[in-house]
C-alpha cells in the first residue's frame, strides 16, 4: 500500500515538473522570438479565459465560440455515424464471407493509403457545406472501423463457432448470436480510433475550406488577424474536446467489452 502511494506521488510530482519545465522552455522561446509569432504561455491562458468568459463575442469570426464548437461537433457526428453505419456491416460481412471479402477488399485497399486530407480539395468543390467536411470525416473514420471489425470477426475463436453449431444454430443465429457479440471489443476499438481520426480530419477540412464556423475556421481566422494567443487557445480547446470524446467512447467500450477483460 505504501509503495502504491509512493508511486502515485512520484507520478504526480514528476508530472507537474514536466509541465513546468515544458512551459518554462516555451516561455523562453517566446520571449526570445523577435518576430513575436510564438505567444507566451500566460497570453494563451489569458486568451483562453477570455474565450470562456465572453464566448468569443465580437471576435471578427462572425460567430460565438460555442457556435464554432457546435459546428465542428455536428460535422464530426454526422461523418462518424455515417462511417460507423456503413463500416460495421461491411466489416462484419467481409470478415464472415469470402464473397464479401473479395468484393470489398480490393476497393478498400486501393483507397485506404490515400490520406483523407488529400480529398479535401475535391470535397470542397463537389459537396456543399457542411457535407464536404462530413465527407472528409467519413473517410477518416471509415477505414479504421472497417478493418477493426474485420479483424474482430476473423479473431472469433473457432471453438465458439463449433459450440454454437452443436447447440443447433442456423447461419443467421451463428452470425447474430456469436460472431457479432464476439467481435464487439474489436468493433469498439475501431470506433474509438475512427473518432480520433475523424476529429483530426474535421479540423483539417475546416482549416482549408471557407465555411460557416468551426474550430478549424476559428484558428484560421485568428491566425490571419495575428492573434496567436487565441490560435493556441483554440488549439488547446480542440485537444480538450477531442480528449473528452475519446474518453466517452473508451468508457462505453469498457462497459460493453467487460466480459473480454482478463482478471
Amino acid at each position, binding site marked *: 500500500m505504501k509503495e502504491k502511494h509512493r508511486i502515485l506521488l512520484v507520478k504526480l510530482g514528476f508530472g507537474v515538473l514536466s509541465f513546468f519545465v515544458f512551459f518554462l522552455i516555451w516561455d523562453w522561446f517566446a520571449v526570445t522570438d523577435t518576430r513575436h509569432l510564438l505567444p507566451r504561455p500566460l497570453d494563451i491562458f489569458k486568451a483562453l479565459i477570455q474565450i470562456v468568459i465572453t464566448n468569443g463575442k465580437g471576435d471578427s469570426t462572425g460567430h460565438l465560440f460555442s457556435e464554432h464548437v457546435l459546428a465542428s461537433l455536428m460535422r464530426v457526428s454526422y461523418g462518424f455515424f455515417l462511417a460507423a453505419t456503413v463500416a460495421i456491416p461491411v466489416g462484419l460481412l467481409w470478415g464472415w464471407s469470402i464473397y464479401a471479402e473479395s468484393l470489398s477488399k480490393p476497393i478498400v485497399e486501393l483507397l485506404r493509403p490515400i490520406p483523407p486530407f488529400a480529398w479535401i480539395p475535391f470535397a470542397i468543390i463537389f459537396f456543399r457545406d457542411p457535407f464536404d467536411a462530413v465527407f472528409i470525416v467519413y473517410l477518416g473514420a471509415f477505414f479504421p472501423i472497417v478493418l477493426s471489425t474485420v479483424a474482430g470477426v476473423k479473431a472469433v*475463436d473457432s*471453438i*465458439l463457432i*463449433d*459450440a*454454437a*453449431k*452443436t*447447440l*443447433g*444454430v*442456423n447461419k443467421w*443465429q451463428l452470425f447474430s*448470436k*456469436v460472431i457479432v*457479440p*464476439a467481435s*464487439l471489443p474489436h468493433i469498439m476499438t475501431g470506433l474509438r480510433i475512427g473518432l480520433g481520426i475523424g476529429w483530426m480530419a474535421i479540423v483539417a477540412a475546416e482549416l482549408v475550406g471557407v465555411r460557416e464556423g468551426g474550430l478549424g475556421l476559428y484558428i484560421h481566422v485568428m491566425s490571419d488577424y495575428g492573434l496567436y494567443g487565441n490560435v493556441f487557445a483554440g488549439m488547446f480547446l480542440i485537444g480538450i474536446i477531442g480528449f473528452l470524446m475519446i474518453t466517452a467512447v473508451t468508457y462505453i467500450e469498457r462497459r460493453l467489452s*467487460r*466480459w*473480454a*477483460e*482478463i*482478471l
Partner: protein
Amino acid sequence: MGRNTIIQIRNLTKVFEKEKARIEALGDLNLDVYEGEFFCVIGPTGCGKTTLLRIIAGLESPTRGEVLLNGQRVTKPGADRGLVFQEFALFPWRTTRKNIEFGLEVKGLPSEKRREIVERYVKLVGLQGFENALPRQLSSGMKQRVAIARALANDPEVLLMDEPFGSLDAQTRNIMQRELLTIWDKTKKTVVFVTHSVDEAVYLADRIVVLTARPGTVKRIVEVELPRPRDRTGERFYAVRRPLLQELEIEVEKAMSKN
C-alpha cells in the same frame, strides 16, 4: 439393459490432407454405442479420438464410411448431439444463465419455459448462486459445469464429451467425475466420453473401447462390470485397469516409434 444401438459407426475413415502431409487419423473403424450407456474412448495421443467425436458431432465429415444416429446418417451438427469441450467453449459475454439458455433460445422457446429449464439444470450441476456470473469469474471446474448444463439443457440424444476434465486439477477432476455419474444417472443420457486416462475410463464407463495408434481403429472393447460407486483403490478396480494400461502402453509406444 435393453441393448438398443443408438450410434452405429461403419467403416469410418478420416484422412487429413495438409499441404505436405497426409494424415490418416481413423482407419476403417466400426463401433456400436448402446442407448443409455456410458461409453468411454481411450487411446494414445493422436489416435483420432477427438476426430471420432467431432465426426459424430457432425463438425467433421468422414473421408469414407458413415455414422448413424438412430439409423439416420449424420451429415451436420445438430441439437440432438451435445458436445462438451476440454476448453469449455463458453460464450464469454454470456452469464451462466445465458450460456445454459443458448440452445433453448436458438430453438425459439418462450422465456418462461427457458427460465424453468435453466433453473433445473443450474440445480442439477450445482451452480445455484452463480447464475449471473460471467465465465471469467468462474473456476475451471465451474466453467465445465456450465458447459455440461448447457449441453444437457438442449436435451440431446447423446452427450459427447471430449476430455472434459483434462484441464482440471486432480481433486476437482475426481469430484467432477463423481458428479457426472450422478447427473448421468438422473438424466439417463447416452454418454460418449473421450479420455486419455485409463483411471477415468474405468471409474466412469459401462464399456471402454481402446483405439489403436494412428490410423485409429478398434483394438479392444472392455465391459466394466464393477458396481457403482466404484472404489478407485480396490483390487477389482486394478484388475480392470491393469490390462487396459498394458494395452494402451503398447499403442503409445507404436505411436511414438512412428513419429
